[in-house]
Structures are given as structure tokens and as C-alpha cells.
């Protein structure tokens, strides 16, 4: 049941992105180009999504279980630190540079765009770099320096 609901949710999400014009990097850049010919469409996509989301998440807090069973896992962190901001800035630079963020890039790639495939491949590599390579490198470095970490 859960995978089926997830499939329908992904399909709906993608349809929404396409309908809203968000799979076209030129339109993302036109939204971010506040000093040029500004296209505010993205704000309405975000506004429409948040309007429904407000109701959904208010309900999610009161609902005991997901429809497919199991707990509803809402984020618990409220930490505001440098990591959060640096992450946002790096993401924003990439977003403004190519005009793609993860969801639209995935949809554009699936539709057959070779350019989106390059972007998605690099994005997954960037995720691996963060999740795998950096932790491994810092472990190696601390071992070389003779600090034996006790957390592993």
C-alpha cells in the first residue's frame, strides 16, 4: 500500500511541476532575475503548494498513523547553524547557475533531456561526496594525526 501511494504522490508531484512551468530552467532563472524581466510564476507555485501543505501538516500532527500504516515521521530538528546556511547558499548558487533543482531535474531527465542527465549525475556525485567521501577522508586524516576516534 505505501509504495503505491508513494508512486501516485510522485506522479502528482511531477505533473504539478510540469503544469507550473518549473521543469524549464529558463523560467526558474526568470524568477531569480529580479533585476531583469521578472517572471513571478515560481512564487505562485510555491504559494499554492504551501497553502495545501499548511492544511496537510496541521492534520499530520493530529493523525495517529499514516493511511498505509506506520508512524508519521516529521522532522524534529530546529537547529539553525552554519551548516544549514552554507548548504542553502551552495544549493542556491547551483540552482541559479543551471536553473535546475533536484525535482525538476529528475523529471526533465526522465523526459529524455541529455542536459538534465548530466546535471542529475553530477548532483548524485555531489551527494555521495558529502555522504561518503568527506566522512571517510576526515576519518583518515584523524587517524594519521594519531587521534583515534572512539565513535566507531
Amino acid at each position, binding site marked *: 500500500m505505501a509504495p503505491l*501511494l*508513494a*508512486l501516485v*504522490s*510522485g*506522479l*502528482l*508531484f*511531477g*505533473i*504539478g511541476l510540469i*503544469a*507550473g*512551468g518549473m*521543469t*524549464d530552467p529558463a*523560467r526558474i532563472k526568470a524568477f*531569480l532575475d529580479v533585476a531583469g*524581466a*521578472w*517572471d*513571478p510564476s*515560481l512564487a*505562485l*507555485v510555491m504559494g*499554492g*503548494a*504551501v497553502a495545501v*501543505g499548511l492544511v*496537510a*501538516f496541521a*492534520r499530520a500532527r493530529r493523525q495517529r*498513523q*499514516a493511511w*498505509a500504516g506506520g508512524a508519521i515521521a516529521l522532522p524534529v530538528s530546529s537547529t539553525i547553524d552554519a*551548516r544549514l*546556511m*552554507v*548548504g*542553502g*547558499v*551552495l544549493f*542556491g548558487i*547551483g540552482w*541559479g*547557475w543551471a*536553473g*535546475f*533543482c533536484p*525535482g525538476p531535474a529528475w*523529471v526533465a531527465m*526522465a*523526459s529524455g533531456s541529455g542536459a*538534465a542527465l*548530466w546535471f542529475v549525475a*553530477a*548532483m548524485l556525485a555531489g*551527494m555521495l*561526496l558529502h*555522504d561518503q567521501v568527506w566522512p571517510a577522508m576526515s576519518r583518515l586524516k584523524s587517524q594519521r594525526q594519531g587521534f583515534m576516534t572512539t565513535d566507531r
Partner: protein
Amino acid sequence: MHLDWNAFTPWASLAGGLTIGAATALYVLGVGRIAGIAGILAGALRSVRRGQGAGNAVSWAFLIGLALAPWAWRLAAPLPAIRIDVGVAGLIGAGLLVGVGVRLGNGCTSGHGVCGLSRLSLRSLVNVLAFMAAGALTVFAMRHLATAA
């Protein structure tokens, strides 16, 4: 700054946004998870690395649904154009930045943007303001500083 009335599609974009909101609602109420695409991708990637793809069937199902969307759309209408103004090197550089950035900051336009703002999370608002500002400055530098120089 001037509003580009020819490009602006208020009703289509609002309808798209409401649809995304419905998808987000279905994911949180039906499956019990946050529809943040960066997080879903990272989870799917993790399951591949550990050789347990089936362990994350929900993430994969969402990504497959997302990938089916353009094909479902094509049954009814032609897809909107995908206009890209950077080369392969730019796509790779931008992709790397987005990949590292969304993992560092723990979310993207959907996870912090749609879901985080809907949860009234101050943490998400800070991240959204950071990526919006950085995105706008990047476009400004590329379009207005490069040509002025």
C-alpha cells in the same frame, strides 16, 4: 526590475502549486514521510550503496512516479520546452554544488521550501532565504555583471 507579463502564468502556476501540495499531502498523510526530493534521492542512493534497494521501496516508488509524470503529460499535451543556457561543464559544476548543498543543508526547494514552510519551520525558512538569495545573486552576476564588464 519589471514584471514580464508575457512570461507570467499565474493560473497555470497556481494550479501546478496546488497539485504539488496535494502530492505532498498524500505523501505525509498516506505514507508518513516528508516529500523532500533531495532527501528521497539520498535515501534511494543509500539503499543502492548498501545493496538493499527493496529496503527503501517507498523512495523508489516516489522517484518512479516522478519519472512517469512527463510520459503521462505527453499523453494529453506536448511537454513545455526545457531551455538550458549553460554547457556540459556548467551543468556538472551546478549539479555538484546542488548535490553537496542539499545534503549539507538537509533539504531543497521541496523539503525546506514546500514542506518546511508548510510546517512553519524557522529552520527551513532560514535555508529557503539562503538559497533564494544565493540563486538571485548568481543570476544577477551571470546576467548583469558579466555583460556590464
